[in-house]
């Protein structure tokens, strides 16, 4: 493995965000949820991913708010630690090492500094027995604290996080398992057990599934497998307890939740309907139907204004006061199976695969985010177990991404198969696919393969089916332009009534090869002539692919009997063959490379090779356990410039593959990781605002706008900045606030000081006017003083002569100085 150190396998495509109950913060701004080995923080209003809390080394199994500090959050993980985080800044505050894998966490306001954890029973480490323990978190300044003082509260509890709940003010805790409800009172240190009969008669399944306690009253609500909800009261004694039953769900009640005031009870199950029971009038209920998939968890924000529901299709829905879905956080849907291969949409470069039932999901690998779901089946989905539903089993894009072909099928028990072939045209206006043609029953049996011709001239679709035929479908052209073209069958081919299992087009679309069990037939799609047949018995052909670019003369076929064959199409002879149990062949659209996944003794190996050379470019043994069923080469946005021979095959495109456990994995090289690291550093720009891609986009745009505006208003800005530049004001602004006089006192002066430059002209004018008046007065007074002129002249003259004669202008200047108000300066000095 040292040799391959530069190539690493990396998990891609979203972890499960519906694994545990999400948490809404006190201010309802953020939503936290466990996602794989980290805790993701989303914005509740924009449904945008904000950041994640990284640090756990195993699956995060629970997230709860710290009851004593609403800006902190506890998370527990299977790695045996409880971590305390500041979620707004994504800072790890403390790590408490417990030492056992933790399955869920509960806290209560009353029990400060104590967390309740579900851990495996100490002496049965491997078994399925769990206990609820209280852990006193020690106060210590260290980052990592060992907390090994566990005191058992309840034994034999379920590891399911919904199976325990704190009662009113933390006085008791209720836990359910199987047919038993156990209530532990902390004050009395005593527990009561209430059990139900298994009740298999009349279809009743009484097993408990979840529990929730009323926050204000002594009431426990429990959910059951047969869809009943029981409300337990008067349970602080062994005998005289009572319960009432509410029944709406027809499947098991997956989750229950009381609103913070206890006025409502929310429940959800497989019906994907959020049921809203009124606590006081128990026969009244409201519904929020068609939430998309079975509800697995419900959480309510502490102020009760927001609900959020987790769904089985890896989705979190945020609901405003039980009436309106305000946001949907959607991860990569990992359903029961991927029947369509992994496909890359040529237009958006998104990964396309089965999503919700009857949908195709478009998943952006670049942003690790679901772009949208395309409804293929277009039928109301009935949420009921054991119902045969239509499933999308095949999908294909043409070379330019203008057309999408899908096949949906429904197999009824003991009845014939229903198949529909649908062709979707890309609509530039709405930027999505629009249904163009529906072909009901395109074949009489299952469709095994479907491909578009890669040639740019004709859009042709080829389907092969177990009914022994392959069909070519063409877009029927219409001479009149107003009628939209539709697809019609152009050719039906077969070979000796054998069942075709796979087909492949050559890179230029000039050849079509169809594998009929042991025989490979090569056809010319232009004339539908059977050009040649190739065969390599024993073993039916499982997968076929043509070489590309310089290797386009080679045709590769993988057969079931451990053989990989390469034929040369120019000589129609076998070039080489090798014994390999190839489960999947995948060609890189941008290079000659072909990836072959082989299953060997329970695990998969990967070989990357060129058809012209028998030596593999890269090989990795024991990639993962189980067979690799689906893989795809996704073209890179930017080519990597790796020169090392072993990593060169990853330069142009990236190989994604899906393991049996539905993990989406990819290969990443060192240079790529370096680049990613660098780009993530660039992203850390401004920590005051949540950095979302949207913000980055808008922020940059705004910045540019501001600069532009500044450039436009530059002369103005300079002028207004003048007073600010003065030292006095700078000093004023930089003096600590507590030393300064009150703001209202300073404000008037400050504002006036800022106004000087613009109003000085008017002031001057006013002054002049005032002076004129004053002069007039003086003149008048002089005139009045005329009678006593002689007198004044007698004492005034020497003065006049003694002092140097002032000109009129100088005099005016002096007067101005006298009249000018300097009081604000003096007051400033006083301070």
């Amino acid at each position, binding site marked *: 493995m040292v040799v391959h150190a530069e190539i690493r396998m990396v998990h891609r495509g979203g972890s499960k965000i519906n694994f545990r109950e999400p948490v809404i913060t006190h201010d309802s701004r953020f939503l936290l949820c466990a996602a794989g080995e980290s805790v993701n923080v989303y914005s509740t209003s924009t449904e945008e991913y904000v950041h994640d809390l990284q640090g756990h080394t195993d699956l995060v199994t629970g997230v709860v708010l710290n009851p004593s500090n609403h800006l902190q959050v506890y998370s527990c993980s299977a790695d045996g630690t409880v971590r305390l985080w500041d979620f707004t800044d994504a800072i790890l505050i403390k790590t408490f090492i417990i030492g056992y894998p933790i399955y869920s966490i509960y806290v209560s306001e009353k029990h400060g500094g104590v967390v309740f954890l579900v851990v495996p029973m100490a002496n049965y480490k491997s078994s399925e027995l769990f206990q609820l323990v209280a852990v006193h978190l020690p106060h210590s300044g260290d980052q990592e604290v060992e907390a090994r003082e566990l005191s058992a509260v309840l034994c034999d509890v379920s590891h399911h996080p919904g199976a325990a709940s704190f009662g009113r003010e933390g006085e008791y805790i209720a836990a359910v398992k199987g047919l038993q409800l156990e209530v532990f009172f902390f004050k009395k240190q005593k527990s009561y057990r209430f059990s139900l009969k298994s009740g298999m008669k009349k279809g009743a399944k009484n097993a408990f599934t979840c529990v929730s306690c009323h926050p204000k009253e002594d009431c426990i609500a429990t959910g059951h497998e047969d869809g009943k909800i029981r409300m337990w009261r008067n349970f602080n004694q062994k005998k005289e307890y009572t319960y009432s039953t509410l029944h709406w769900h027809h499947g098991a009640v997956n989750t229950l939740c009381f609103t913070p005031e206890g006025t409502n009870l929310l429940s959800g199950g497989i019906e994907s309907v959020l049921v809203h029971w009124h606590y006081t009038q128990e026969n009244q209920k409201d519904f*929020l*139907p*068609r*939430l998309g998939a079975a509800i697995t968890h419900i959480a309510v924000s502490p102020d009760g204004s927001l609900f959020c529901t987790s769904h089985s299709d890896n989705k979190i829905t945020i609901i405003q006061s039980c009436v309106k879905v305000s946001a949907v956080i959607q991860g990569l849907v990992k359903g029961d199976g991927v029947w369509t291969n992994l496909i890359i949409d040529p237009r958006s470069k998104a990964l396309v695969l089965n999503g919700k039932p009857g949908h195709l999901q478009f998943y952006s690998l670049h942003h690790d985010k679901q772009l949208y779901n395309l409804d293929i089946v277009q039928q109301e989905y*009935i949420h009921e177990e054991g119902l045969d539903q239509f499933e999308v089993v095949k999908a294909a894009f043409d070379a330019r991404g203008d057309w999408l072909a899908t096949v949906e099928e429904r197999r009824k028990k003991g009845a014939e198969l229903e198949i529909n072939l649908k062709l979707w045209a890309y609509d530039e206006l709405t930027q999505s696919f629009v249904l163009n043609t*529906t072909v009901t029953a395109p074949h009489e049996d299952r469709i095994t393969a479907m491909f578009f011709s890669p040639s740019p001239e004709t859009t042709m679709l080829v389907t092969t089916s177990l009914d022994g035929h392959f069909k070519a479908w063409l877009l029927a052209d219409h001479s009149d332009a107003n009628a939209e073209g539709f697809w019609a069958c152009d050719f039906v081919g077969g070979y000796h009534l054998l069942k075709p299992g796979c087909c492949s087009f050559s890179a230029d679309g000039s050849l079509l090869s169809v594998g009929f069990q042991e025989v490979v037939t090569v056809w010319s799609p232009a004339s539908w002539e059977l050009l*040649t047949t*190739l065969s390599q018995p024993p073993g039916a052909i499982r997968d076929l692919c043509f070489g590309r670019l310089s290797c386009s003369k080679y045709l590769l076929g993988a057969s079931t009997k451990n053989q990989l064959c390469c034929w040369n199409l120019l*000589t129609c002879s*076998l070039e080489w063959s090798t014994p390999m149990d190839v489960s999947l062949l995948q060609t890189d659209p941008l290079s000659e490379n072909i990836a072959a996944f082989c299953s060997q003794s329970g695990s998969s190996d990967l070989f990357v090779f060129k058809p012209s050379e028998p030596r593999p470019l890269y090989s990795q043994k024991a990639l993962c356990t189980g067979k690799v069923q689906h893989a795809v080469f996704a073209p890179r946005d930017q080519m990597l410039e790796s020169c090392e021979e072993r990593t060169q095959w990853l330069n142009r495109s990236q190989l994604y593959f899906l393991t049996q456990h539905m993990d989406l994995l990819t290969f990443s090289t060192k240079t790529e990781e370096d680049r990613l690291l660098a780009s993530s550093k660039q992203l850390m720009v401004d920590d005051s605002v949540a950095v979302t891609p949207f913000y980055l986009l808008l922020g940059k745009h705004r910045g540019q706008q501001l600069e532009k505006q500044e450039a436009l208003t530059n002369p103005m800005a300079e002028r207004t900045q003048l007073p600010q530049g003065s030292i006095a004001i700078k000093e004023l602004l930089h003096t600590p606030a507590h030393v300064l006089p009150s703001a209202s006192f300073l404000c008037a002066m400050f504002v006036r000081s800022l106004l000087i430059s613009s109003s000085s002209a008017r002031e001057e004018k006013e002054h002049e006017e005032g002076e004129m008046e004053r002069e007039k007065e003086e003149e008048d007074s002089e005139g009045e003083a005329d009678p006593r002129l002689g007198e004044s002249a007698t004492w005034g003259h020497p003065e006049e002569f003694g002092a140097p004669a002032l000109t009129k202008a100088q005099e005016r200047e002096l007067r101005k100085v006298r009249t000018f108000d300097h009081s604000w300066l003096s007051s400033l000095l006083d301070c």
Partner: protein
Amino acid sequence: MASFKSTKIPIYPKLGEKVTPDTLYWKNYKAPVQIKEFGAVTSIDFSSLAPHNYAVTASTRIHIYGPFSTEPVKTFTRFKDTAYSGKFRSDGQLLVAGCEDSVVRLFDVSGKVALRVFKGHTKGVHVTDFTSDCYHILTGSDDYTCRLWDIPNSTELTSYKEHTDYIRCGTTSKLNRDIFITGSYDHTLRVFDARVEKSVMTMDHSQPVESVLLYPSEGLLVSAGGRYVKVWDLLKGGQPLVSLKNHHKTVTCLSLSSNGQRLLSASLDRHVKIYNTTNYKVVHNFDYAASILSLALAPDDESIVVGMTNGVLSIKHRKSPEEKREMVGKQRMQPVYRIFVKGRNYVPKKDDFLVSKPVKSHLAKYDKQLKKFNISKALDTALESWRRNRKPEITVAVMKELDRRGTLKNALAGRDEQNLSQLLNFLIGNVVDPRFTPVLVTATEMILDIYQAVVGQSSVVDRQLVRLQELVEREVDYQQDLLEVLGMLDTLFATSLPRKEVPCPGSSRPNGLAEGSLGAPGPQLQAA
């Protein structure tokens, strides 16, 4: 929260003709006006002068009709025997006609008596025409000759005796006064030039030629004879271009539409076929009551006039645009439509502030019930009488939806006699419809399962069940017969198709093992 997705009603392809612009154009004619003539109508010719009267030659008369008159405007009766080929001169003043008594007569359109009488032919004259300079007349006769006559002197100019059988059709060039073309029962078409002694071009139609037609450009010539219509390229020395075989009896007449884009051929098989002249595919077809002998189109395709062997002249006039609009206007006057459309076609002005209102999705009645999971009620609404009679596809779609939900059996159960007989009626009406069979067969099986206990309690239901049984048995017999026919056809096709060898070097032996011996490269692959 997604909205409820309504039940999808599949759109089944409509059987029958496809609507193309051609069908719209050629269907835009009123019901035909029929006029009875005295004998078979052998020729119809439109005057090029403004009211576009047309001359109809039938028996011993030539009638001239106005464009919208059912009574003849004028009649020429001075024929001693059957008249043929009444033709207008291009200025519309003169009319020439041949006669079985071998005399060719020239009339003034306003007069009654023949202006000129050309004698010289020895047998009946079936072909007459004016040359493009208006001073000469072309005639073709059963005495195997065709002649040119001078109108002012009423003398014969030239005579060609090249054909070896009756000359039954001919036309003059509209661009050159000396060129004319004749077709004869000796299977040939001949192009003559009056300046030359002999024919300049001969084409072999290989059937007696009944009609010839020159394109306005005169580069192409169309001839009809036997069941074939053939197009010849005159500029390439009479090379055959296409041969059309769309009639199953002799084609008697040819005509071009006014814009030259469509070619019409009339035949004794009572059909008029319209071809596209670019690809020579039939774009439309008219049916008539009797074998057609003559056909003419008014300028601008204003009317189609067809003469038949039983003496009926059928005239179709084009619908005027006003009438069309009237019909549309009538539809618009319906009050329901007015209320429906009120305010919806309002276009907001520039400064208007648009307040968008959430569009309330309208659900059909059965969808409303399905939304509430009221399955029996949903089926009831889908089985309402008008719906099941006029739109059985809706009823079937609802049944299919219920089947998908796994609740069809519940919905079918618990019905009383009236309800059940209604249901059975619907099944009897539609179960053999190939569009609905897959769904209805399951429904029928379920009904039989559910109600087998009550068989014999109601005479109505019992009778219907018996009918259903008979229907199914008959259908099974049909299918059996069809399969037999299919098998027979398959063998016929298999024997008629040429056996094609498939080059498969590896089908018999595994080429992987025998790769050394199989060194021969596939040449066809290198081409690919």
